[in-house]
């Protein structure tokens, strides 16, 4: 745990260098929150009752998804691809750290940093300006935090697996683009999954992306409650264990045949 904080600390020190980048991100969150709220209010005014939940719930869902927008994509695949390409991966492997844990600590450090400087302030702004409701009860609130953490871990492992491809095929930017787009769509970040029709809905319910953003948001807004919420958390756990297993196995394969470039 100390290690996670150690990496988070680095991000706080780096923020001084990238002040402009920080303000850009912060303001983009505000703009996105404003935009999604405006969109849902317009749609609800046009056809109330067409989206399955109350307008309050939908606005909360949308605004919250924008506030936590930045938490998940902390960039391990970019980091890994860069290290492999420049040969600096040697230096990572020279640390007395399990590589998987190292990447997790690095990513989580950045995530914790973003929680403090982007997500929490974003939620406060959402609460005061954009009709972001509080969760219905303490249980939902607690479960939301658990589900959000699990969602982060599921997303991290998807990213990590993508990053591992960099060891094999070197160039991952195009795959990353596809994964990113797929993930954002199927995670329910922009459109809640209950609005997906037919086959697309079935598919969205099976893919691990549902476990990243949709589950915590649905728990927060009270769309998933009681047994359904518990079931959704089990779904997240299932994917986390599966992806974790694949990650460990794949790294074992890769480590044997590592050929580091450069130097």
């Amino acid at each position, binding site marked *: 745990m*100390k*290690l996670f904080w*150690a*990496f988070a*600390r*680095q991000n706080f*020190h*780096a923020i001084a*260098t*990238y002040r402009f980048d920080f303000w850009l991100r912060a303001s983009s969150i505000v703009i996105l929150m404003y935009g999604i709220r405006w969109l849902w209010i317009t749609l609800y005014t046009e056809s109330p009752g067409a989206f399955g939940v109350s307008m309050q719930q939908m606005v909360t869902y949308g605004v919250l998804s924008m506030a936590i927008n930045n938490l998940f994509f902390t960039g391990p695949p970019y980091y890994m691809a860069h290290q492999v390409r*420049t*040969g*600096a991966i*040697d*230096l990572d*492997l*020279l*640390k*007395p*750290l*399990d590589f998987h844990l190292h990447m997790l600590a690095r990513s989580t450090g950045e995530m914790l940093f973003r929680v403090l400087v982007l997500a929490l302030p974003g939620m406060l702004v959402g609460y005061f300006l954009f009709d972001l409701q509080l969760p219905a009860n303490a249980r939902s609130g607690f479960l939301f935090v658990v589900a959000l953490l699990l969602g982060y871990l599921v997303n991290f492992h998807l990213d990590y697996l993508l990053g591992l491809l960099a060891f094999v095929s070197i160039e991952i930017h195009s795959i990353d683009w596809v994964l990113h787009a797929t993930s954002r769509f199927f995670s329910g970040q922009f459109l809640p999954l209950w609005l997906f029709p037919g086959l697309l809905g079935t598919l969205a319910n099976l893919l691990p992306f549902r476990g990243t953003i949709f589950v915590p948001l649905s728990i927060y807004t009270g769309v998933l409650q009681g047994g359904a919420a518990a079931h959704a958390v089990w779904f997240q756990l299932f994917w986390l264990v599966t992806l974790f297993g694949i990650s460990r196995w794949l790294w074992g394969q890769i480590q*044997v*045949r*590592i*050929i*580091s470039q450069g*130097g």
Partner: protein
Amino acid sequence: MIHVKHLTKDYKRVKRREGFLGSVRTLFSAEYETTRAVDGISFDINEGELVGYIGPNGAGKSTSIKMLCGILVPTSGEVLVNGLVPHKNRMENTRQIGAVFGQKTQLWWDVPVIESLKLFRDIYKVPEAQYKHNLELFNELLDLNEFQNTPVRQLSLGQRLRADMAAALLHNPRLLFLDEPMIGVDIVAKEKLRTFIKEINRDQKVTILLTTHDMTDIEKVCSRIMIIDHGRIVYDGSLEQIRAEYGKQRKLVVEFEEEVPDFSAPYATLDKSEGKKKWFAFNRFETSPSTLIADISSRYPILDLAVEEPEIEEIVRTIYRGKPEATDIQAK
């Protein structure tokens, strides 16, 4: 400390075809070619040694060091670092070694040096007392306090290398790999780094393997030198030994009282002539400087004398070129 026996590493690479269509074909059916980067090398390094590991580019230096670090799995052969097989115990092994790669930095680019060191303190779980003690040592020997609050990207190259050196030694490794740690550094900074390397070797008994292309580094710092070429160790011995074996050629510099015509002495050839000075090259096994001086002084009055030893760089150049002597020496 280090035990290496018949260590070999083959790289399997996709054979590239020429031209656009060639590259497209490679996508579907790749041919592989195998290159042998390290070819059955053997050596032992004892605790506290300071070994210069040299060789031309692509000779297999980095590959062998990576195998010692445990980040590359050998194709065959034995390798033991302080009793551990590096690639089987990578994490344990990394605790006892430190490394500086001159061309790469392990520091965080955007944050002050001291913050990177704190991160390494947490990664290596360095006790607070040891951390403080080492920082004091680095302040004293590397002037770390002059730039510890500067972000790495604003450091000069010399400062960055000093910071990297501190990062590599923070966890008190028993073994230190320095892979071209002084590349591109100015003379003053170089001298500082050399002194530092010698001091930590002497005072803390850190075993050091130094890779460099600058023969002055070797001469000033190392007690033993290993030369690798085409994946094989072509020389392994002390500096004196290499001079004795290869440096048969000496030069006698004579300054005469006045300008004299060119001449050659028995077993010596006139190498260069400049005003009142003349350089005579001779093989020290064929004649001795004293007989040579006696002969020359019988001809003309001498003002001043000096015997020049061959530069180590010249010797190494001969070995790189693959003089047949090289194999003789390894056999001994």
